[in-house]
Every structure is written in structure tokens, then in C-alpha cells.
């Protein structure tokens, strides 16, 4: 099974060797980094024979000449257009903290992973949790093998954010974590792809409440490609309520292979919305472990793709304890030759009686060449549960289009209104900046709207 002498892994293995051990890093984290690179080296990149990666063609990434993204300073203005008003913010450029663009939230303990205090709460949290579960090793699910890109991130992340929300804290202001990629845009360097490994750890304390907004975007204007490989861990302690929005608006030629992992303890709630618009080759793996009685997770998502974009959402929700509930609603809008994969696995352990799990995936195809794949997978080992799933793939309703036109709406306006209507519930859920999202959905003026 082991791939022998896979030269495509060389740049990553070399970087790990070159870096050596980092002074000041907790021994537990060093160990996890070592184990991660070993697992990555042993497994290599997934091929088409790997069931979990069967529909995700990563060959274009593996063909590219990759190199680590360099540190780059940016103008404040370049970050500003991606920042939401009324939020505290942590800004990273090419995976490295940009303190000059950031405003540290006061009610929480937040730090840059590259610049951790030697001791104290944040240092303890990192030593305990960072990389402890993120690549799925802790999972009981039969298929939970190595996630190669999560392992790569653990081994190679250079910087990132840790946010610890103290027990009982109710944080009113959302915390925005902006991950900016700033690719080199020189002519003649089109084959060079810079990679970065953004890393996020959020620990929501007992009975705390907070909102985290992650934004992935590029300062680039041209077609420079880059490879962003983020990993996020969300630990929800008993009774914690954590809202999470993940807006992915990378450049059109970017590779985005991300992983997020939520661990929920008793009566915790994790509500995550993913909005994916950018990138050329995009995959997001989201795992939620409902590991405490009465915990609930919502994993919602919207993907809007066109051209030759590919977006893959791979979900795994594990119900491990009784009375746990999960909701997933993913919707896709695909135009041109865009393709999508939705792979939704719900795994109900034997102990997880009274599980209530619901999964829905709906796709709207706007062109004949667009293609959506939808794969619901239920594995249920408890006998007193309610699990439902449904998926649809359809086209725009011609009757509705004619109805709107017969009332005087020009074709493009009617079209925009119907597309927006399809996506609306998910867009409005991410209500912090609906106008910008609306513009990207409708492709400009004359489109529909929310009211």
C-alpha cells in the first residue's frame, strides 16, 4: 500500500526536515507534528483508488511546482475590503499573523501560534488540544484513515490562531479570522504554486458563547495560483454555544484543500455555515463528533461555482452519545462546466440512542455541462434513532421563469431572482454581510435581492 519514493511529497518532507524543531513549542505539539509527517509520508497523496478521494482529482495540484509561501507585508487597504464591521479580527497573510491589521478581542484569550506566551491559559490549551484529534485518529468510524492534508497542516503549519473563550463568557462581537493569500504575480512564474497552512484552534469553555467568522481570500487580482491548506479545530466544552461561518472566496485558480473538526461535549452546540465561491480546485472536509449527551451540530453550506471550478464538500457527523442531534443543509448552484461533490456521512454509534440526524443536499444546475454528485451515506448501529437524508439535482424552473417574465421582469432579472431564492436561506443565515454575497450570487447589477 505504501507509495514508494513519491517525489510529489518531497517538497513537503524537505520543508519539515529543514525547519527542525521549534524552540518554545510544547513537547506534545512537537510529538503530534512528528507523528503527522510520518503518517503523511507513509500514506502519500491519495490516488483514485482511495474511496474517500475517488471523485476528487488532485492531479493538477500534484503536477504543480510547489514552494512555501513567503512572508509578505500587505497594505491595510488590501485586508480592509474583506473585513466585516463590528468584529474583532485576526488577520493572517500567507498563513502568518499580521498584527498591524488585527484588533485583538478583549473578552477572550487569543494569540498567534507562532508567538505564544511561554505559560498561561493559552499555552495550556494549545499543548492539550492542538492537533490532538484533527486528522481523525480519534474517530471510531471504520474509514477514518489518515487525512493527508490535515496531517500536512499539523506537520507544517507555521502560524495560526488560537482562541480560547473562557468558561461562562458571552462574547458579543464576532471574531473574524481573515486568511489572506498573497500570491506572487510575476509573469513567467505561472507554474510556481506557493502553499500555506493556516491553522485555527478554538476552545469554547463551559457555557460560553461566541461567533467565529473565517474568511479565505486573495489579495491577487490576476490568475496567480496558490495552494491554501487550512485546518481548524473547534472544541466545544459542556454547554458551549459556538457559531461559525466559513466564507471561502479564494482566487479562481487557487487550490483550497481544507479540514475542519468539531468536538462537542455534553449539551454543546456547534453551528457552522460554509459559503464557497472561489478557488479552482476546492475541497472542504468537515467532521463533527457529537461526543456528549444532548449535543447538537448544524453544518450548513452553500457553494456557487462556474467556469471550470470544482468544489467538494466531504462531511462526517458522528453521533457517539444518546440524544444527540445534527442538521446538515447543503445547497449548490453550478454554472458552465463546474462540478461539485457532496459526500455526507452520518455515523450513529451503538450507544447513541435517540439520535436525530437530518441531511439535505440540493443542487441547481444552470447549464447542461455542469455536474453535481451527491452521496449520502448513513451508517447506523443504534436501533432507536431518526435519520433522514435527501438529495436533489435540478434545473431552473422554466415555469417560474416565464411567470416572472410575464409580470414584466426582464429575463436576467427573473433568472437572478430565482437563483437567489434558491440560495437565500443560507445566504441570510450568514447575515453579517448579505449585500456582498448577493452581488457575487447575481453576478452584478440588475440581479434579484432579498426584499
Amino acid at each position, binding site marked *: 500500500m505504501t507509495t514508494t519514493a513519491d517525489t510529489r511529497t518531497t517538497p513537503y518532507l524537505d520543508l519539515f526536515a529543514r525547519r527542525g524543531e521549534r524552540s518554545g513549542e510544547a513537547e506534545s505539539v512537537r510529538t503530534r507534528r512528528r507523528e503527522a509527517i510520518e503518517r503523511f509520508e507513509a500514506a502519500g497523496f491519495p490516488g483514485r483508488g482511495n474511496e474517500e478521494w475517488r471523485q476528487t482529482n488532485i492531479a493538477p495540484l500534484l503536477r504543480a511546482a510547489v514552494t512555501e509561501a513567503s512572508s509578505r507585508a500587505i497594505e491595510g487597504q488590501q485586508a480592509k475590503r474583506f473585513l466585516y464591521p463590528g468584529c474583532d479580527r485576526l488577520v493572517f497573510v500567507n498563513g502568518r499573523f499580521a498584527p498591524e491589521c488585527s484588533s485583538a478581542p478583549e473578552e477572550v484569550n487569543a494569540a498567534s501560534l507562532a508567538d505564544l506566551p511561554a505559560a498561561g491559559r493559552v499555552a495550556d490549551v494549545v499543548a492539550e488540544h492542538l492537533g490532538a484529534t484533527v486528522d481523525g485518529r480519534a474517530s471510531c468510524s471504520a474509514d477514518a484513515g489518515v487525512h493527508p492534508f490535515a496531517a500536512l497542516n499539523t506537520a507544517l503549519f507555521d502560524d495560526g490562531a488560537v482562541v480560547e473563550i473562557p468558561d461562562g463568557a458571552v462574547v458579543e462581537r464576532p471574531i473574524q479570522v481573515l486568511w489572506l493569500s498573497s500570491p506572487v504575480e510575476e509573469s513567467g512564474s505561472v507554474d510556481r504554486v506557493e502553499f500555506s497552512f493556516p491553522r485555527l484552534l478554538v476552545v469554547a469553555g463551559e457555557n460560553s458563547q461566541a461567533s467565529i467568522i473565517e474568511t479565505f481570500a486573495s489579495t491577487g487580482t490576476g490568475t496567480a495560483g496558490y495552494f491554501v491548506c487550512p485546518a481548524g479545530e473547534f472544541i466545544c466544552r459542556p454547554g458551549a454555544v459556538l457559531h461559525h461561518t466559513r466564507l471561502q472566496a479564494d482566487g479562481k485558480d487557487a487550490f483550497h484543500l481544507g479540514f475542519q473538526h468539531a468536538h462537542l461535549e455534553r449539551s454543546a452546540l456547534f453551528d457552522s455555515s460554509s459559503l464557497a465561491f472561489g478557488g479552482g480546485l476546492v475541497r472542504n472536509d468537515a467532521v463533527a463528533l457529537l461526543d456528549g449527551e444532548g449535543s447538537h451540530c448544524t453544518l450548513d453550506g452553500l457553494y456557487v461555482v462556474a467556469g471550470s471550478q470544482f468544489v467538494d464538500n466531504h462531511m462526517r457527523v458522528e453521533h457517539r452519545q444518546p440524544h444527540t442531534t445534527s442538521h446538515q443543509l447543503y445547497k449548490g448552484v453550478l454554472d458552465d462546466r463546474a462540478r461539485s461533490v457532496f459526500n455526507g456521512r452520518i455515523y450513529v454509534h451503538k450507544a447513541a440512542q435517540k439520535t436525530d440526524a437530518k441531511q439535505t443536499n440540493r443542487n441547481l444546475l444552470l447549464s447542461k455541462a455542469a455536474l453535481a454528485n451527491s452521496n449520502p451515506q448513513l451508517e447506523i448501529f443504534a436501533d432507536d434513532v431518526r435519520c433522514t437524508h435527501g438529495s436533489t439535482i435540478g434545473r431552473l424552473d422554466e415555469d417560474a421563469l*416565464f*411567470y416572472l417574465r410575464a409580470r414584466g421582469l426582464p429575463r436576467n432579472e*427573473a433568472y437572478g431572482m430565482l437563483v437567489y431564492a434558491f440560495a437565500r436561506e443560507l445566504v441570510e443565515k450568514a447575515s453579517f454581510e448579505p449585500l456582498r454575497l448577493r452581488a457575487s450570487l447575481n453576478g452584478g447589477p440588475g440581479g434579484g435581492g432579498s*426584499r
Partner: protein
Amino acid sequence: MLRVSDLHARVEEQEILRGVNLEVKAGEVHAVMGPNGSGKSTLAQVLAGREDYEVTAGSLELDGEDLQEMAPEERAHAGLFLAFQYPVEIPGVGNSYFLKAAVNATRKARGEQELDAMDFLQLLRERAKLVDVDEALLRRPVNEGFSGGEKKRNEILQMAVLEPRLAVLDETDSGLDIDALKTVAAGVNALRNEDRAFVVITHYQRLLNYIVPDHVHVLLDGRIVRSGGSGLAHELEAKGYAGFNGGPAAA
């Protein structure tokens, strides 16, 4: 206002209209009656510009303008309104938002100033009252989960707000109980005036007790086989369509 001459139309290779002639003047109400499959709904859809229907011969003019040259939205801007036999449910689009977009698209196309939210709301409330529509319907998504009666009332409300020159009502009476039928008819009657014309398409004479037409036409096998005054509807009710087989069309 409306002039339909020797109209032939087909859908998927099947010829449905086979030479329809119809002339409607401002202020008039015309009823087009016919059994299932006679071409009633095809006539309505062709007038509104549904692309699935192909006009193979003849002409359609609204105020001297060739309707065939116009997209469905352009026909609406010119003052044509079709009340659908089966109004379409549009989840995710609010009813009043939709109506505002429709009104302003039309105003924009005519070079008029668009209505702001306040002015529109005032217009909407006034018209909802005129045609006896509950304001709760305005806050729901377009037709989604509406009862049959609510959908038809919503069509009448749209007509009241859009103020067409020519309104074509395609079996607006189908599926309505008598109370809903009376409400819909009262709404139409409230909108009758000397500048506006109606073409009321129906299977049954019942609606015409409440919307009294100036002219009645019998459509059979894609042709108008007889035209007359409102008494013709009663004759039809008594004799059925069987008595009209292939008779010559009166002018």
C-alpha cells in the same frame, strides 16, 4: 386594442390553434368558452409569449404593435397581463418584493420613475383592499403553500397592482368555491373601466354570472365557431358544446 387574425399555433408538432380571429376594443369584456382541449389555454399562453408554443401563421397585435416581436416581459410592459390558470409557486421570493420588482421593471421600461418602498407599500395596501386580499398573503413567498383560492386572488391582486391595458384571465374560476369565485369576480369588476379590456377564458358559464361579458366566443378545435352576446353563454350552459360542432364562425 387586441387584434388576433387567423392565428395558427402548435406545441410539439401538434397544431392546436387553427385560425383564430378575435378583436377586442378598449372597455370591452370578452369571454372565450370551450371544452377541454379546444385551445383555450394555448390562446392565453400564446398571447403572453410562452416560448413552447410556436405561431405558424397569422398575427397578434396589441394597440397596433406586433406581439410576436416582443418578449414576454415586453408584452407585460406594453400592458398585457395573463392571470395564470396554474399560478407558479416561487419559494424564497416574497410576494410583495416580487410585486415591487414587477411594478418597477415595468415603470423602468416605460421610462417612468421607479416607486420607492414607501410609495409602493401604499399602492399595494390600497389595491389589496380593493380586491379584498388579506395583507398576510403579501408577506409570504409567492404562491407557496397558498390554497387554490388564495392563488387566484393573488393573480387578481397582481393585476390590480400592475394595471394592465389588457387582462387575459385563464380559467381563473377553476377550482374555486362560490365565495372565492365571487371575491375574484368582484375584484375584476372593480378594475373594469373604459380604457381596459378583459379576455375571460372559461370552461363554465358560472363565472359569467358575476363577470358579465359584452361578447362571448365559443372555441372548438382551435377555431372560434360562434360569437354572440352574453346570452350565448346561457345557451351553451343549456345545450352543451356538442351543439356547436364545426358551425361557421359568426363575425
